[in-house]
């Protein structure tokens, strides 16, 4: 299903609404800004994951880059084949960033994420356009949150250069993927641990039962409330002692109010401008222990330190590796901590 020409705004909105269907279907969709040779492969990865979980595949809306009124004009390989029923291409509209009516239409209740891909036709300027699009979406999302109480739109931005990350920092964009930075990091990592790229490839490739990183929030009133009050070490030991446990605990995240720490300039600036209204920051603690030791070695007495004996609290998120998230959560709810030493 494609939008062949620049129709009137109302027609376009109606077309989007028709494509997304009634809100009650529970159909989720992902919005891509800019078509790219990477788009078919990203969609294939997502479809593979949905398939392994026996979930309905996503629908996809692709906002074409300026200068392309329809998908037929795009270079070959920029869009996936055989997705006609689940893919809607809409032309870039100058109102996309200025007014919010189109954005409102595409960000229905089933929106899962907005993925802003680097425009391959813009070369070195691609990052600038991706940042502008991200700004427009984040502003719209914040406005929606304030006015209607709608949830924040999850935004993923692809950048070429890691130097441009700084521009997105104050916007509170959820995720920035920088292919250049990844190349640099992986080349250096491969240098001292040859073959490590294959591990990442294995962790990231979506196949049934493939192990990957996941997180899960602990809540006092949730099914895993009984884990609260125990230490990370106790929980890890209990999981390891479970026969063929479907998860490996790797760490946890903990939220902290910003006011408790040194002023976070980017955050404060963004908050002042009304772009975000999130008052918490999160500490990611992978492989707990080293942070506190390094802090102590360097004499940073004020730095928060976590180790294996840190007690898990309400709202903490467990970071784990699993091949089956549902099985992992079930294992967590059944894990017995009473026989672990020190419990």
């Amino acid at each position: 299903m494609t939008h062949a020409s620049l129709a009137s705004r109302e027609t376009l909105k109606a077309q989007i609404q028709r494509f997304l269907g009634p809100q009650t279907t529970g159909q989720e969709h992902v919005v891509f800004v800019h078509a790219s040779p990477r788009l078919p492969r990203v969609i294939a990865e997502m479809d593979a994951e949905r398939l392994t979980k026996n979930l309905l595949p996503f629908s996809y809306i692709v906002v074409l880059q300026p200068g392309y009124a329809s998908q037929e004009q795009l270079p070959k390989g920029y869009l996936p084949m055989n997705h006609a029923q689940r893919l809607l291409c809409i032309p870039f509209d100058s109102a996309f960033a200025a007014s919010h009516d189109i954005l409102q239409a595409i960000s229905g209740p089933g929106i899962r994420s907005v993925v802003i891909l680097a425009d391959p036709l813009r070369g070195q300027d691609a990052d600038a356009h991706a940042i502008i699009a991200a700004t427009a979406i984040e502003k719209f999302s914040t406005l929606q949150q304030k006015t209607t109480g709608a949830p924040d739109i999850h935004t993923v931005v692809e950048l070429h250069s890691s130097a441009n990350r700084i521009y997105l920092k104050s916007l509170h964009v959820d995720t920035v993927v920088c292919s250049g930075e990844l190349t640099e990091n992986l080349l250096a990592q491969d240098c001292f641990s040859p073959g490590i790229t294959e591990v990442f490839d294995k962790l990231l490739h979506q196949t049934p039962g493939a192990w990957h990183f996941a997180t899960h929030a602990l809540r006092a009133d949730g099914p895993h409330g009984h884990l609260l009050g125990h230490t990370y070490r106790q929980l890890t030991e209990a999981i390891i002692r479970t026969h063929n446990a479907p998860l490996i605990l790797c760490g946890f995240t903990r939220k902290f109010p910003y006011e408790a720490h040194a002023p976070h300039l980017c955050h404060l600036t963004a908050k002042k401008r009304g772009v975000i209204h999130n008052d918490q920051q999160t500490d990611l603690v992978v492989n707990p222990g080293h942070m506190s030791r390094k802090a102590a070695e360097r004499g940073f007495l004020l730095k928060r330190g976590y180790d294996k004996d840190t007690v898990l609290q309400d709202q903490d998120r467990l970071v784990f590796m699993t091949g089956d998230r549902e099985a992992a959560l079930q294992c967590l709810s059944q894990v017995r901590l009473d026989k672990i030493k020190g419990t």
Partner: protein
Amino acid sequence: MHNTLREKLYRLLLPINVQTRNSAGYWLNFGLIGLIVASSLAILLEFRLDIAADATVFQCIDIAVALVFLLEYLARLYAARNRRAFVTEWISILDLVVVISSLTLIAMPFLQLEAWDGLRLIRLQRILSIFRFFRILRLFRYKEIMHLAWVRLRIYWASLLYTFRIPQLLGLFVAFGVVSFAGAWLLYWTECANSAVCQDAPVFDHFGDLGNAYWSTLIMLISGIEDKEPLSIVGRIEAVVILLIGMILIGQLTAQIVSTVLVRFERVGRIRMLPPSTRVFKDHILILGANEHLDNIIRQVWTAFAGRRYIVVVDPNAPNLNITDPKVYALVFALEGHPSDPLVLERAGISRAHRAIVLSDPTIEEPEQQDSRSLMIAVTAQLAGGFDATVDGSQEPPFYTSVQMNQVPGHVAKHVLSRTNFICGTHIAEQLIGQFVLNPQASDIYHHLTQITDETNEIYLTDVPQDLVGKSFQEAQLAFLHCDANDITLIGVVRTDEVDGALQPSILLGADANGTNDDTAPRPLRREDQLLVIAYSEATAHLESRHHGERQ
């Protein structure tokens, strides 16, 4: 073992090698080496000089050094993971002999040795004095760091010679010396021979004296302005020749100095060029090609190896590569030349390299062509590095190569190039985007794990510690969980199995690493397996392996 004083002491006293990150330990090791060398020199001085006046000074130094050595020995004994093994090591026995002999010599005046006759006492003193000399042998304990320092000194010296063109300058100075000396003698002989004919010419007296002749020749060579001239025709011809040679030599010398100074000014902020004598380079990282990723890769490699490995960048544009942080670029050299030229690679010390990284050529526009060029450079690097796939017994290249690719290469490339890893950032980025949409919270984790900094963890491959060989994956996990000396999370195993007559490594993550299902027993870890661990530094990951090995 918990993070106790004993553990801290153990880490502090560990011998330094190229992977060590503990800067306190680094300086302590250097301090102890300095003390050993200085105290050995002091003993030599004690014998060489008349020390009657300074006997107390030397005695005080000796007491202080002996006490430091005693403290060091006791600290090592206390911190040793296996004290019995420590005591029976030959280097520990040597330490003890040195300490005891020094302390006994110091204590002799206070001991009741009246019963001993003078001869026996003198013999004992001599034997103990000889044992004191053995302290120089204690340097064997620090052989790794000393070798490291020696290599660094040689590279520094080679770089200094190259940067300031010292061999060329020395050559010119030698030529200058030879010409001035030969010229002075020639003028002296010529003028003396002529003065024998014309006895009445007093001016001949000037060049008739060798000292005057030498002084005048020097002035003629350097400035050409000399008011004393030879009077004989032959002497004058010789003076003209000396003047001409002087113009050439001084011109060359001035040009060399000026150009060195100019080049130094021009190269401020640029990467140092690799000196021609590169045989001293060993276990360095070679970066073949340069593009926009170069700076960040150098930074990451610098962090990963704690700034202790040399990096050589080979690129046609090498003289123009800039330094962004002098600290990070302190051990980085650039070599001008194309990375696909085997002679250039040989100059870069490819056969002695630790790893090679091939970067895409930014001058080529098409990504496919960039990849083809990168593959060709990787093949050339392996061939130049001494790998010959056609010869039996050299199936593996001497070093690993990481190649930056725009597209995932086919099986042919992977098959032809062994010990080569292809890094396709865009491919990983595509997978990450998919992962982040489906699992938004995971983005920080992957970002954390792919970055190399002192504050973040990375995934490492490390050998199976000796005491975990034969244990199950689950038991290994528990062992790592309860070992707080170094924080490591075991996440998988790389097992190498024989498939169709060939060894095939397979990555097994999580419970898959147990190598079992509900009915069979877990597969034990083997020596040839490798563990996949999350650790905050490579040294930590390997230290833990060593720690387990020592406990055994």
